[in-house]
């Protein structure tokens, strides 16, 4: 690699040929490249100058061709110029994940599938809510991707309802990513116009950053978790399009203020929709189903 202009090649001579071609100049003499490089030409014009050994003389070296250019860390040297160069990257750190997510989103759009990414802390009732939702949706086509570090318990619970489910075990991983969803989608039948539920690993932090290709993140918060949870873990609520306050049937027993839950969620994300539900009693579930059906209708149009 030429450290002056960045032209490619492996040996110094090849690089210099490429460099000269790039700068539109003929090679003066086969021995020229090393010496010219040593001169650190400041301009393109300087490349074609006949070389002399002035700089080397000035450094007290003998006027021969035996001098070493490769003492710097790059294995070559261009005086007057630092060996390091800057490579503009300008790439999102999660660009790889985002590429997978974009592919998933495209696949799902082609099938008019409405996909939700269910995120919450462990124990907020995601799986119970899903089981109830599936029962209430009846014959509507749907599929579930379950994410957990270990066990197939959640997928087993979903399959018990008759719905197709695939379990992704992340091992030590704290979130699902776009590539996992792509693999899961390849292994499961997903009819056109279906609802896809992706139950993320129970974790209110990391899944916020990883796009899976879903239409919306749905953050689930149960009333036993404390009104200030959205303030303690704002990223997830900021990333979500809908928040479900679950287990509202327990509210009277927990001395909680549901309005405060809601206002704290909106404090983090003024644009979010909030629904109060109880998967156990079915309270508020109809509004959640309506939200899902509206999303599905938008995908179909």
């Amino acid at each position, binding site marked *: 690699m030429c450290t002056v202009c960045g032209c490619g090649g492996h040996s110094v001579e090849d690089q210099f040929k490429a460099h000269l071609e790039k700068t539109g100049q003929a090679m003066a003499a086969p021995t020229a490249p090393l010496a010219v490089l040593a001169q650190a030409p400041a301009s393109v014009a300087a490349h074609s100058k006949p070389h002399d050994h002035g700089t080397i003389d000035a450094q007290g070296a003998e006027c021969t061709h035996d001098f070493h250019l490769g003492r710097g860390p790059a294995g070559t040297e261009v005086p007057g110029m630092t060996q390091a160069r800057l490579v*503009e990257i300008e790439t999102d750190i999660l660009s790889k994940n985002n590429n997978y997510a974009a592919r998933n989103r495209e696949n799902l759009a082609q099938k008019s599938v409405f996909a939700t990414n269910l995120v919450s802390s462990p124990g907020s009732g995601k799986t119970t809510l899903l089981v109830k939702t599936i029962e209430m949706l009846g014959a509507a086509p749907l599929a579930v991707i379950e994410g957990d570090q270990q066990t197939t318990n959640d997928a087993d619970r979903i399959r018990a309802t008759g719905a197709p489910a695939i379990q992704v075990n992340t091992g030590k991983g704290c979130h699902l990513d776009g590539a996992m969803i792509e693999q899961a989608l390849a292994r499961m039948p997903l009819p056109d116009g279906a609802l896809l539920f992706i139950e993320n690993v129970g974790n209110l932090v990391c899944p916020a*950053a990883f796009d899976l290709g879903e239409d919306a993140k749905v953050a689930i918060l149960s009333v036993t978790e404390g009104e200030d949870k959205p303030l303690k873990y704002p990223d997830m609520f900021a990333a979500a399009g809908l928040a479900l306050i679950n287990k509202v049937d327990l509210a009277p027993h927990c001395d909680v203020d549901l309005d405060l839950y809601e206002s704290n969620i909106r404090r983090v994300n003024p644009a979010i929709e909030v629904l109060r539900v109880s998967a156990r009693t079915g309270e508020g579930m109809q509004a959640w189903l309506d939200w899902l059906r509206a999303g599905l209708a938008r995908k179909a149009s």
Partner: protein
Amino acid sequence: MHEMSIVEGIRSVIEEAGQTQGFARVTKVRLEIGRMSGVEIPALEFAFDVVMNGSLAQGATLEIINLPGKAVCFDCEENVEIEHRLDTCPRCGGARLLVQGGDEMRIKDLEVL
């Protein structure tokens, strides 16, 4: 602890760039990290040293450019700059701010040999 996955993302971008742009070593990595990105800088720095071992960027310096948080206030309808997601509007004191920038996580450039 997703700083580890984030750094793995950085590593794979660097390895790919090394192949396409032909460099053998990275001496400095500059990242742009928004205040609202949810990235914990000390955790990122720790993960960086661990994950870059054995890569082109082993031993590279990590430089982080902090980008400010940007939000639009639903009360005064102005674009404002904020430090934290839960800040109130610095102009009108309103609490309903919609964050619009500051969640960046980008590799800006690399200093390479």
